[in-house]
Structure formats: structure tokens, C-alpha cells
């Protein structure tokens, strides 16, 4: 009986640690970007992709994420994709498909991708007016050629 309980217990533990598709926090200053190998430091531009099987890939620049997905032919429909909110850098990640983006050299992102993500049109508005450029959506990013 004891052994059966033990087996059940172990199975339970395995079950807990199994592959759920969920966001994994970025450990700034320790985690390295999957694509460019740089240590992720700048909270404003971090991004993450969680695959169908629950493996999390972290990136230091939205351009790194896009490039990685293109190179590895990631099926983006099934992956969860997160981008950091430029205005709220303290670990407040947005669903990449809901976010709005601006592209400008003034952001000086770690890998020179120069994309910044915002939660709503209103959040992006002050920057948009100043930079006078177009607001982008996730679909635009996926099709846009990346200059890196």
C-alpha cells in the first residue's frame, strides 16, 4: 500500500512539473537571449515565446524574436508570444498579438531592431506624435523585413 502511495505521489509530482504552456518570468541579468546570446538586461524591450510544448524562449529584442521565428520556421499560430510593455518595464508583459508597436531609431534597442511595444493606442500616442511614424500591429511585424 505504501509503495502504491509513493508511486502515486511521484506521479503527482511529475504531473505538476509537466509542460504547461505558460509565461515564464525573465531573470534579468542572468537569462541569455536565445537568438543573439546576449544577457537580457533592458526590461523595456524583452520578449518571450512559449511553444506548444511549453518551452519558453526568451529574447532581448523584439527583432531577435522575429528573426528566430523566421529562421526556425516556428509555427507562430500555436506559440504564445509575449512582449514587454515599453511604458511599464517592470515585468509587465503583453500578449504580442494584442499589442501595438512603434518602430524608430530613437529607441536604441539592444540589437538595433528598434521596436517598442505598447498596450493600447493611447499609450503609444505620445510617442507616435513625437516620432511621426506609423503604428504597427503584430501581423505587420511578422511580414516586415528585419534590418539586423
Amino acid at each position, binding site marked *: 500500500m505504501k509503495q502504491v502511495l509513493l508511486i502515486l505521489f511521484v506521479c503527482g509530482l511529475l504531473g505538476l512539473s509537466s509542460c504547461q504552456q505558460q509565461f515564464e518570468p525573465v531573470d*534579468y*541579468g*542572468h*537569462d*541569455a537571449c536565445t537568438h*543573439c*546570446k*546576449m*544577457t537580457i*538586461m533592458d*526590461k523595456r524591450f524583452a520578449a518571450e515565446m512559449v511553444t506548444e510544448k511549453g518551452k519558453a524562449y526568451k529574447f532581448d529584442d523584439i527583432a531577435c524574436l522575429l528573426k528566430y521565428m523566421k529562421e526556425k520556421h516556428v509555427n507562430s499560430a500555436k506559440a504564445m508570444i509575449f512582449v514587454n510593455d515599453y511604458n511599464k518595464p517592470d515585468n509587465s508583459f503583453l500578449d504580442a498579438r494584442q499589442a501595438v508597436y512603434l518602430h524608430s531609431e530613437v529607441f*536604441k534597442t539592444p*540589437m*538595433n531592431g528598434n521596436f517598442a511595444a505598447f498596450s493600447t493606442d493611447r499609450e503609444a500616442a505620445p510617442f507616435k506624435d513625437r516620432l511621426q511614424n506609423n503604428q504597427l500591429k503584430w501581423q505587420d511585424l511578422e511580414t516586415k523585413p528585419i534590418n539586423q
Partner: protein
Amino acid sequence: MKPVLLLHIFLLYAVTWSFATIIKVHPAVNSIHHAANIAHSGDTLLLQKGIYKEHDIVISKKLTITGEGFPIIDGENKYQVFIIASDSVIIQGLQIQHIGKGSITDMAGIKIVNAKCVTIRNNRLINNTFGIYLQNTTRCNIVNNMIHSDAKDEINGGNGIHAWKCTHLSITGNSISGHRDGIYFEFVTDSYIAANTSFDNARYGLHFMFSHNDTYTQNTFKSNGAGVAVMYSKGVIMCDNEFVHNWGDASYGLLLKEITDSKIEHNRFTKNTVGIHMEGTTRVDVRRNIFQDNGWGVRVQASCSGSSFVENNFIGNSFDVTTNGTMMLNTFNNNYWDKYDGYDLDKNSIGDVSYYPVSVYAVITEKIPPAMILYRSFLSDIMDQVEKVMPTIIPDMLKDDHPLMKKLKL
């Protein structure tokens, strides 16, 4: 004789005409601002000892600003201090401290914007977000400065020396610690970095991005979070540097990514997790370096090509070389490997059998990192011995046909 005499007279007058004045500045409200306003081009501001609480001092004339006994200019954790927007400015002997943090602007102790031939020497920059910030500058000299930050929140910190879109810089003899990256180069070309010490920085001691034809030599990079990274650059010359004790999960003595036509000569890589990590490099010459007591001496990814490793010493590394594929388009020749156990019958001090520097366990841990837990176990020893007799797993293209019997004197 006559032209010489004329020249003398001309020079004599030239000196008297351009005789610059020295303006003494004492600590008071806005005293540096005031002095900088009344000064003429070519004048010297002599700052007396004391604490100056001034900020956003824009220098738009050719001035020399000299400190006597290290006067302190304090940014009160809110502001930035010097913004240099004129050519040929000299700043020396100051202590600049407590620069603030901006979310949009990068605040720095000394910021040089669109200027030429500026010299910053013998200053102390303490607890600043960015120490010295160069933007769109040419021929600037950054010499013998001490740049240090105690910032606990290193992640949000800035870089010690930050250069963006510059050419012909000379950065020598500085000591940089406690910043995000010690020296950061982005779009900087034809520059020279020598004899600096960069240690205890949160990320990289030196960080190159898209910076071509630069040389760095005789620098020491020690105990940085992730070592040194040279990325997406062409024609970089790295010689006589020391990479010491860059230890950690994602740490490298030297991380090379997408580097073309570069030279790595006469450096010393000691006690790093990975001595050199190469990814996507083309034609990189690695010659006469010492790799000692590293976890991995060299990690060459299969995406590298045309690189050569010649006359290096590999001593006491857990793994000398590792790679992630079977293809090897790089060559190893005339290196000394302390793990080589071949023989030299013709006594020409070159081993008669080839050395395969990738051990079987290096291949396994490359594919399955947690297998490291069994390293140096009985099992892994057996595998190593079997592999030596019948190579099946190790990439047989990666070998040194002329391994040296004796250590090179470097």
C-alpha cells in the same frame, strides 16, 4: 635667415594675440554655468576644490576645464552634468558623481555630442548611470579615467563608456567597474582601445556591436557578468588582452558572433566558463593564445568557417574544444594540448599522431547539458577510452595533425 626671422616674429605675435585667460571658479550657485558663459573660446576654467551642485552644463566653446584637487560636481541623482557640443574641449581632474536616471534620455556624467577632438582625462566618475557618453563624435580621447558605480540596481544601470556612431576614438588607461557594460561600442569604427581594466560589470566588460576595424589591446577583463562580447563586426584586432574569471551560466571569456576577418592574438584566457565561444564567424585567426583552467577552452559552433587555430597553448581545461555539429570548416594546427598522449619518434617536437581535441563527453554534454552530472565518473572514462580506440561520436574532421610536444613560450 630672413624667412626664419619673419616666422619667429609671426609666432611671437601669434602667441600674444591668442593668449588665453585662466578663469578661476569657486563653488557657488551656478558658478560653472556663469564662468562657461563669460569665457571666450580657448580659455581655461580652473575649478577650485569643493562641491558644485550644478547640472546640464553645456560647453559650446573650445574650453579647457581643469580641476584642482578633484572638485566634486554632483548631479544629485536627478540630473546630468556636462554636455559637450564643441570641438577640442578638454576636461581633466574632476570628480563627477550621482548622475540621475532618465527613461527616454540616457543621462551621463560627461556627454559628448556631435564634436571632434575632445579629450577627457584623469577624471573620477562615480555612481553615474552612464559615465562617459559619446554620440556622433570623431577623434576623441578618453584617457586614464576612473569610472565606478556601486549601483545595486545594475540591470537598469548604464554603461561606463558608451559610444554610438563614432570614429577614430582612443580609449586608453581607464578603469571601469560596476556598470552594465564596461565599454560599449555601437557603430564605432577605426578606434583604439588599450590598457583599460574593466571588472565587476553586470554584463560585459567590453561590448562591440556593428563596429568595424577596431583594435583592442593590453586590456584586462575580469569577473564581468558575461565576459566580453564582440558581435556583428568586421576587421577587429584583439591582442595582448587578459580575460580572467568570467564565470557563470551564460558567461564567456570572449563571445564572438558574426565576426569576419578578425585576429585574436597573444591573449590569455584564464578561469572562464568558456574561453572563446564562436558563432557564425568567418576567417578569424586565433594565434598564440593561452587557454588555461577554463571549463571549455574554445567552443566553435558549426556555423563558423575559415578560421584557424595555430600555436595556442591549451592547459588544464575541462574540455579543450567542443562543437555542435559534425562539419568542421576550421583548422587546428601546431597547438600544444596538455591532454595529448601521443608520441614523437622522429624527435621533431611534433607529435606523430593527430590529436582530437573534442572529447566524447564534450559532444554528449553539448547535446544533453544535464549529462554533465556524470562527468568524471567511471562511465565517462570508459567512453573516452573506447572512443579513442574506435572514434564514432567525435567529429573526426576536427583534429590537430601537428600537435606540439612542448608548451609554447608565450
